[in-house]
């Protein structure tokens, strides 16, 4: 009875100049151009955006939760990458 074989696209919207595109949701469309139009109609009805990206959901390669230890833990022990690791004497001011 139902039939739905349009492709799924993820939608990213830049809400104003100077900001990153942010993921806002997904929609179905026949191709990327079409998805852009629908993203405009479905996700920016209140002028939420000035720029839109759409990406086929199937084209997104995502890290897996199972990989998280190998992926993300190693950076946990590199505190020297953070500015707070280096206390400065008051006298030198901000750096």
């Amino acid at each position: 009875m139902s039939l739905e074989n349009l492709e799924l696209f993820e939608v990213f919207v830049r809400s104003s100049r100077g900001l990153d595109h942010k993921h806002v949701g997904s929609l179905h469309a026949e191709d990327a151009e079409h998805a852009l139009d629908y993203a405009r109609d479905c996700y920016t009805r209140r002028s939420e955006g000035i720029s839109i990206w759409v990406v086929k959901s199937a084209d997104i390669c995502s890290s897996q939760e199972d990989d998280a230890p190998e992926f993300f833990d190693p950076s946990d022990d590199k505190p020297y990458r953070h500015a707070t690791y280096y206390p400065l004497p008051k006298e030198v001011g901000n750096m």
Partner: protein
Amino acid sequence: MNSLPSDLERAFQAKIDNEYKIEPKDWMPAGYRKNLIRQISQHAHSEVIGMQPEGHWITRAPSLRRKAVLLAKVQDEAGHGLYLYSATETMGITRAELIDALQTGQAKYASIFNYPTQTWGDIGTVGWLVDGAAICNQVSLQRTSYGPYARSMIRICKEESFHQRQGYQIMMELAKGTPEQKSMAQDSLNRFYWPSLMMFGPHDSESAHSAKSMKWKIKRETNDDLRQKFIDQTVPQIEFLGLEHPDKDLKWNEERGHYDAGEIDWEEFHNVINGNGHCNRQRISHHVAAHEEGAWVRDAQNAYNAKMKARRAEAA
């Protein structure tokens, strides 16, 4: 069945207890997933079916401003349906499957939409009370444990606030209008007040899914707590309109700091859920008809897309 939780389950519950959001690729118990799909899709279907009782008044809205507002409002509900289908699809179930479940009666939608909207007054009460009750629920769901659902809720809540206000504004105009308008408002309040209270579902003691949903923080507040909130907030709103409160047993309870309310007619509640509302069949057959009438359009899109791909491949 093994009743002891596995390590995975324990780790999962620990995340929930620590208020970590669960994201699409995370491991989750089958029951959590099932429960979520049931709740989010039911929610999505409600948004979409909810377009009908208001949608058929767009053509009759009594002023151009109301026409534009109502159209924008109903269109938002379609958008909410889309956001929520999109959240459900992150769990690997397709919209087609969800729609199929709706149309074959396996999935439910909010029973309130099986009540008919008979007068323009109903467009006021639906926005004010039905969206109002929905908002109570949705505000609490902004903290739901599943990330995509929580994010959809945040987006939806932002849009909802105008829905309730436009409904209340309709009521204000009616209440201070001609005697006919005022009685239209009262009549509509009388018909929609109790069904709005039913939107929060059965009492906590009777609710089949409540305990598990609370433990997994899919639901954040219980049916009865949310209903109480709604009852309390609605009293001054009715008063301001100068309308009579439909609940004759309503009484302020100093000790509890809440209103005590009369009992809901649960027989009617179950009756409508079980298919005996005025519009149960109509709502589904409308949805099926639109979906089937749209089939040739979707087919054409797919065929066109395939042709274009083939053309590009040839050219390459």
